[in-house]
């Protein structure tokens, strides 16, 4: 379910790092909680994002939710496909439904995030207590 080469946050974002570049999205758990996504608001290329701070919003039929940056860096690209087909976040959250690509300020920052096993345990605990 959760790709082993991704890292995860407690706010349910994932990041896949290759070199100094990271791709960011929301997890399958998050898309499931949100329900049908109808709109995504993302930053333009060149914008700086800071770890733990809001970088965009996702609007579903239920709510508008903030998306938090897993690590700090500069936005390289926002997923243009989401403008017309935001539902790919629901159908392929870990792939085609990615949100932004960013240049990491410090690539070692990701080591502070959860790996797939830790995230899986985190959401199991969440579901058990819910």
């Amino acid at each position: 379910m959760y790709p082993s080469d991704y890292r995860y946050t407690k706010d349910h974002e994932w990041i896949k790092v290759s070199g100094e570049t990271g791709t960011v999205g929301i997890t399958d758990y998050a898309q499931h909680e949100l329900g049908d996504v109808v709109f995504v608001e993302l930053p333009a290329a060149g914008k700086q994002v800071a770890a733990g701070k809001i970088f965009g919003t996702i609007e579903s039929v239920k709510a508008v939710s903030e998306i938090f940056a897993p690590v700090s860096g500069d936005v390289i690209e926002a997923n243009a496909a989401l403008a017309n087909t935001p539902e790919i976040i629901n159908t392929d959250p870990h792939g085609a439904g990615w949100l932004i690509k960013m240049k990491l300020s410090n690539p070692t920052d990701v080591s502070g995030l959860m790996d797939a096993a830790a995230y899986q345990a985190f959401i199991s605990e969440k579901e058990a207590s819910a």
Partner: protein
Amino acid sequence: MRYLPKSPDERREMLASIGVRSIDDLFASIPEQFRLKARLSLPGPFSEHEIIEYFRARAAENSCGYTSFLGAGVYNHLRSVVTDSLIQRGEFLTSYTPYQAEISQGTLQAIFEFQTLMSELTGMEVANASMWDGSTATTEAVLMAQRLTGRNRVIVARSLHPEYRQVLDTYTRNLGLRICEVGFTSTGQIDAAQLETAIDNQTAAVVVQSPNFFGVVENVAPLAELAHAKEALVVAAITEGVSLGAVRPPAGADIVAMEAQSFGLAPSFGGPYAGVIATRDKFVRQLPGRLAGETVDTEGRRGYVLTLATREQHIRREKATSNICTNQALCALAVAIHLCLLGKEGLKELAAQNLAKARFALEELEKVPGVRRAFSGPFFNEFTVEFPRSVKMVNAELLREKIIGPLPLGSFYPELTKRALFCVTETTTRAEIERMTAALRQILSNPV
């Protein structure tokens, strides 16, 4: 609303069934010292007859038989009794805000139709369910521009309604928004040269009103080009909706903020009115307030919903798009009914009458010695003239003739104490215009 009286026996029974001895026991949780001991200082009780007599006497205190030339943001227009009787139907008058779409179809449909009418009138792609009034709509339009551009400077025409500017100042005092004002030229229109130098790359919006506070129609398209060249947005305010029956909607505007009072709402000493905010489709997610949408249910039948409600305050709390949590539903309904009664041709005819009567009034005024037209720009149903003396002094004398004179612009612009803003609508008769100019001629021929 029904009043259900209760007999002493019924009161006793109700109290017994919840286990208290007296009505006072219901307030036991309020500390003794905060309870009201004295009787309310109210006259009465009165019989039905006495109450009717009382209000008849109060109504008789209203002045009547006056002719008014006051406009300046609130306009006297003909209204049909059809509007008032329809909006007083219980289904509309007492219905609660339509959170539950499935049982609020009528209310939502009325809002949807209001939005459609407002989009068509303003020439914009989308209009919301209505705002408090024109001044708050203008302010919300500015805040919307601030969110859309991420910039914190706003340029406001001095010819924007001064009370709208006050509302903007109040709303934005603690929002880190810097407001800069741009003056006007001898045409009464915004000083485009001054505007061009004022717009910078921190400018979120340029706010202009058309017809503006002096009654002069602005040419918005070239102003919009100046703003768009620096990626600033244009907010166009409209205080007199009837002008849209004769004047092209502000071309190039990104957000239109309008007061809809002219459409079926009585001046009523300042409200309630209905504000309009309309914009481009691409800005819809920053539109404050609420939006009704048309859709189909699972069986393909037409239905109405609150669209984008997830951005409203009752769901998004402090992160909501704005503090607006509802809309002026009943006033917006009156506006929609009034416009449907008028129809497209009716609105054009109404606007043509306003324009013709205002032109006639200006021509008559210009024949009065000492009176001259103050601004050369085109106008709709309001125009500014200059008197040879203080407008307030002239108005005091006009009032003795049962004429409510023009707005003294000196009240808002200290340098314009001799300038008077006249408003003439379809309600003003030719005879009244002639009576006013004759009185003015007499007043001005007397030594000061």
